[in-house]
């Protein structure tokens, strides 16, 4: 029961964060397109997306679960599963002209670009942190040995 409640709490926080960020991104896109309104349907579509992403995030990356696959495998599977789901939401809520193939291609390209940028960004940040921590720990151990 405690584990279940912990999982629900974790999912709820993740869902709220994704929803907030997706609304912020949506507002920026709207401002670029010089549109000053967000409809309830659009907000609902973002909510649907946030729920789906947070469930996937829980399944693939949550710490409360044991993952047998490597991080990279989970990331690839997450990306492959999320794309059709996102496409379905985009189709249902008419995020773009769904009859145009070029719009779908652009949608997939943007999806891949965002995914690659985010993954690379985190990877670079983690590598830099690893080197920095290695230096600090190494220096500390030298000082301890000397004293």
């Amino acid at each position, binding site marked *: 029961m405690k584990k279940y409640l912990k999982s629900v709490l974790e999912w709820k926080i993740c869902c709220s964060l994704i929803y907030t960020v997706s609304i912020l991104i949506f507002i920026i896109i709207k401002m670029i397109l010089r549109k000053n309104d967000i409809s309830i349907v659009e907000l609902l579509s973002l909510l649907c997306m946030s729920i789906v992403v947070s469930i996937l995030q829980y399944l693939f*990356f*949550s*710490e409360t679960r044991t993952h047998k696959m490597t*991080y990279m495998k989970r990331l690839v599977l997450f990306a492959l599963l999320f794309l059709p789901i996102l496409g379905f939401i985009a189709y249902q809520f008419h995020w773009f002209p769904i009859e145009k193939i070029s719009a779908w291609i652009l949608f997939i390209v943007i999806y891949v670009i965002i995914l690659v940028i985010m993954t690379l960004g*985190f990877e670079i*940040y*983690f590598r830099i*942190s*690893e*080197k920095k*921590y*290695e230096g*600090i*720990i*190494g*220096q*500390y*151990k030298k000082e*301890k040995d000397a004293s």
Partner: protein
Amino acid sequence: MKVGKETKMKIHIDQDQHYLETEIVIRCSQIDEDILRIVSTLRLYQEKIIGLKAKEIHLIDLKTIFYIESVDKKAFLYTKDDVYESPLKLYELEEQLKQREFLRASKSTIINFLKMKTVIPELGGRMIVIMDNNEKKYVTRKYANIFKEKIKQIERSLHV
């Protein structure tokens, strides 16, 4: 320290200015689990710990321990080449060792900070610790802040 219900134990402290060093003598009919726990706790004051291997009692230097892991409610001490069972529970070891560079990394693991090579952060708040022998251990999100704070403290002290 929890001592078995049936164990009756007298504690005598003999104080005299003529004694040159502190000596602890335990008189018992046999060395059981409780006695080992008492000795193990006392040894920690000398930066040493008791470990059991093949029914033999070993005195292990704390500096040689890489990490401590709990399996089936038993704590195991991992050195470079050996694994020893500790008479103490993981929470007791955590309590005794927290002032000695040992940090809790997860529900079942305590890591010797001085045997760490580096730390790699991961998405979701978890961290991977690479030990000096290149073994990987995980720091769960719950305990990751302890490691981050320790590294920050060191960083600050190195810059002073």
